[in-house]
């Protein structure tokens, strides 16, 4: 059935840049320190204090802008966004209004293969300062403010309304996050608030050119919530439209407990931010050479890397996408690939057993603490038949647990694969003697009985027997 209504979605991502010091003062940006310990007259907005732009924050911004294929503004200027809130020390935010530092870029969102991909256009990327954090002690008649976050460099990345479904939004965010992590400008940790996302969404009759009334959704603390909130909102707006009711321009909050969006403020209550050029920061012209140097130094980004993994390592498109989705994982794979020849095996292990361990422990590849050379050692032991693949799985788990090397674990636990013909033959004869029923089943034509017998031999050798040899030996003694 053809859908009658389509959604038009634009996303705004706020990214905390991982500079050592804040955007306009020398305070540390370290996370999780005691309240107000990383503050100074400037980020507290004390009378008489003045901002000075952190060069690194600016250079990081340019790096992001270039990676998102944006144009860079010739002249950089900042503006004041005026509004009152206790977490905003000056009651204005230094931001960029009519001249964002970059504009007109795009992100190619490739999921489910290149053909299914989509280009999401980036409207603007601008630099601003973060606000502090309000803390509301329970049952208290007051609130507290922690200004450690105030003045942290924040990059706002705004898309054009190019996105048409919650799934596309999710995929865009995943692709964007992947690029940002490759640039190593932010840890992109949504739980810490270093990456935040707001959405603008409207619905219109399919095929219509004009945009519907826009609703802004805030308070979505994970990509999953973005997807859920958008799904809910599309449903809500579509039902209103179908019922011929008016959709109001407003800001709504996502309630992750109730799975609904709720109205926060209407357009009439919207702020007039009274933007004007920040007189304390002098506009400056960007040296073209600096931009070119940053462009040249951009790392290989996820798409290019996936292509290389397919081309150079012979991996499937799927494996390559999974491995390059996360920069640490991709780096890890590259490092392993340098010292281990069978790339397909490597991909299977990393995307299989190691991925399972990462999920179980909720860490990324580095969190497993397995050096590439140690993984290579383990895989080489399978290749030269020192251990079986099955034993290798246990050894890997043990390596992660104890941080011991594969060789050490195998020798200390006596896990070396038995490839000695005489030893295997002894076990095979023993098993055949004890399982006459299966032997006769097999001989009677039930060929699957051999699986049971292999299992018994493996059991007897505590999994150490070379399975291929066991198989051959059994067949030989069963008279084939």
């Amino acid at each position, binding site marked *: 059935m053809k859908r009658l209504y389509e959604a038009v979605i634009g996303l705004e991502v706020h990214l905390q840049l991982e500079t050592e010091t804040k955007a306009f003062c020398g305070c540390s940006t370290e996370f999780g320190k005691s309240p107000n310990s990383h503050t100074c007259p400037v980020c507290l907005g004390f*009378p008489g*204090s*003045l901002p000075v*732009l952190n060069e690194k924050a600016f250079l990081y911004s340019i790096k992001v802008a270039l990676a998102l294929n944006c144009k860079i503004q010739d002249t950089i200027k900042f503006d004041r966004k*005026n509004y009152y809130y206790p977490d905003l020390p000056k009651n204005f935010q230094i931001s960029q209004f009519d001249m964002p530092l970059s504009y007109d870029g795009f992100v190619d969102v490739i999921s489910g293969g290149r053909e299914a991909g989509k280009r999401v256009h980036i409207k603007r990327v601008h630099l601003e300062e973060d606000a502090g954090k309000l803390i509301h002690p329970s049952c208290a008649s007051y609130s507290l403010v922690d200004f450690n976050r105030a003045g942290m460099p924040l990059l706002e990345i705004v898309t054009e309304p190019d996105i048409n479904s919650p799934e596309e939004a999710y995929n865009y965010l995943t692709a964007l996050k992947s690029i940002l992590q490759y640039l190593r400008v932010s840890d992109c940790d949504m739980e810490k608030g270093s990456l935040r996302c707001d959405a603008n969404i409207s619905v219109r009759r399919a095929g219509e050119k004009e945009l519907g009334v826009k609703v802004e959704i805030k308070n979505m603390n994970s990509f999953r919530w973005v997807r859920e909130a958008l799904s809910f909102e599309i449903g809500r707006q579509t039902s209103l439209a179908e019922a011929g009711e008016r959709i109001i321009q407003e800001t709504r909050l996502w309630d992750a407990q109730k799975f609904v969006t709720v109205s926060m403020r209407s357009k009439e209550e919207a702020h*007039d931010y*009274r933007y*004007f050029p920040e007189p*304390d*920061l002098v506009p400056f012209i960007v040296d073209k050479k600096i931009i070119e140097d940053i462009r040249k130094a951009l790392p290989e980004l996820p798409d290019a890397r996936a292509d290389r993994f397919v081309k150079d390592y012979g991996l499937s498109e799927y494996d390559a996408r999974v491995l390059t989705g996360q920069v640490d994982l991709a780096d890890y794979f590259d490092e392993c690939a340098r010292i281990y020849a069978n790339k397909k095996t490597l991909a299977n292990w990393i995307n299989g057993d190691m991925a399972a361990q990462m999920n179980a422990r909720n860490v990324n590849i580095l969190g497993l603490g397995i050096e590439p050379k140690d993984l290579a050692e383990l895989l080489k032991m399978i290749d030269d038949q020192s251990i079986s693949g099955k034993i290798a799985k246990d050894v890997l788990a043990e390596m992660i647990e104890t941080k011991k090397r594969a060789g050490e674990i195998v020798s200390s636990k006596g896990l070396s694969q038995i490839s000695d013909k005489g030893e295997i033959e002894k076990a095979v004869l023993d098993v055949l003697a004890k399982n006459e029923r299966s032997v006769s089943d097999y001989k009677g034509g039930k060929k699957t009985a051999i699986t049971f017998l292999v299992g018994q031999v493996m059991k007897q050798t505590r999994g150490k027997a070379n399975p291929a040899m066991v198989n051959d030996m059994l067949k030989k003694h069963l008279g084939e």
Partner: protein
Amino acid sequence: MNKGASVLSKEKRGKLYGIPVLVKDNICVKGEETTCASRILKGFKPPYDATVIKRLKDEGAVLIGKSNMDEFAFGSSCETSCYGPTRNPWDTDRIPGGSSGGSAAAVASDQTILALGSDTGGSIRQPASLCGVVGLKPTYGRVSRYGLIAFASSLDQIGPITKDVTDAALVMNVIAGYDEMDSTCVDMPVPDYTKSLVKDVKGLRIGVPKEYFIEGIDTEVEAGVRGSIDLLRDLGARIVEITLPHTQYAVSTYYIVAPAEASSNLARFDGVQYGFRAQDAKDLVDMYIKTRSKGFGNEAKRRVLLGTYCLCAGYYDAYYLKAQKVRTKIKEDFDRAFKLCDLIATPTTPTPAFRIGEKTLDPLSMYLSDIFTISANLAGLPAISIPCGFSKNSLPIGLHMLAKPFDEETLLRAAYTFEQNTDYHKRKPGL
């Protein structure tokens, strides 16, 4: 305030060793109450020194106290202070000018050797003129604003108020120069300003703008200033008539740009972190409203309202943006004029000091007190006011001179030459 300037060996003594300095109450001094003469900052002790204060301390100056001012430097009479008005030492029924009125009155009445002021539209030069002392507003970007509680960031500049031109040069040698804490401070070498104290104006081209000798200017002021220009001519300067055609728009331009910036600069005074907080608030918005209603005086409220209005969506283009364009025109007037002359001479104020209370009910006529000084701020130019005569009532009259950006040297040279050929600066009020 400078807990005992210790006795140092001669080599270690700074350039202003032992010199008492008074500081306008909008310049932060670490640990000393700094209030901008406003209730809203009562009790505020800055945790840091303004850059100029640091430089003064490093050179051995003795900070003896804070001086009165118009609240947040909003005024030309020193009457809007929450501490009450400062009086003019030459006639205590009259205002000393503003906003740095306390600094100028204290220097004129020998309560200090020198004082720091700040000048956003004439706040150093106008009170200097009305109190018969020297007031210098440096080029925008010559002196660091770090630690100056901002009124209008793109216009504010700290400068000296002194008894004579030599002292002004000595202070400039200490406070001028690049500061990495102020992005608008220009990284340019600082000359030794005492080298400009030369008794010679021969060949100097002094421009006299016809737009500055307007109807309504006090006849004694006009006579005093014209006489001074004649003296400079007699001393060898060449007098050139110039035109600054956009002068008539300066006051209106200023009263859009300055309040707009002020409305944003003053937003931080909300009772959350420091200073005054209303105690009887029932919620956050109520706290904001009560704190600001009780904390700010009328003139501060007037300017915040004016500025907020000018920046509102729908009015921004018509007011703020337009004003910025006119500001550029005014700047261009000066660029053209300075092709024909090295200095521009005008009166500092249209009248000598007026009476306390005379203009408090008429903000517009109060705003016109700065009509001759405002353009220097809009264009970012250095300007000086020096004593150049007295009215029949023994009220001081000031000669105002402007120079090209960063050409304080020519300004000081002409002022010094004039001073050395007159004795107005030596006269003392009969307190």
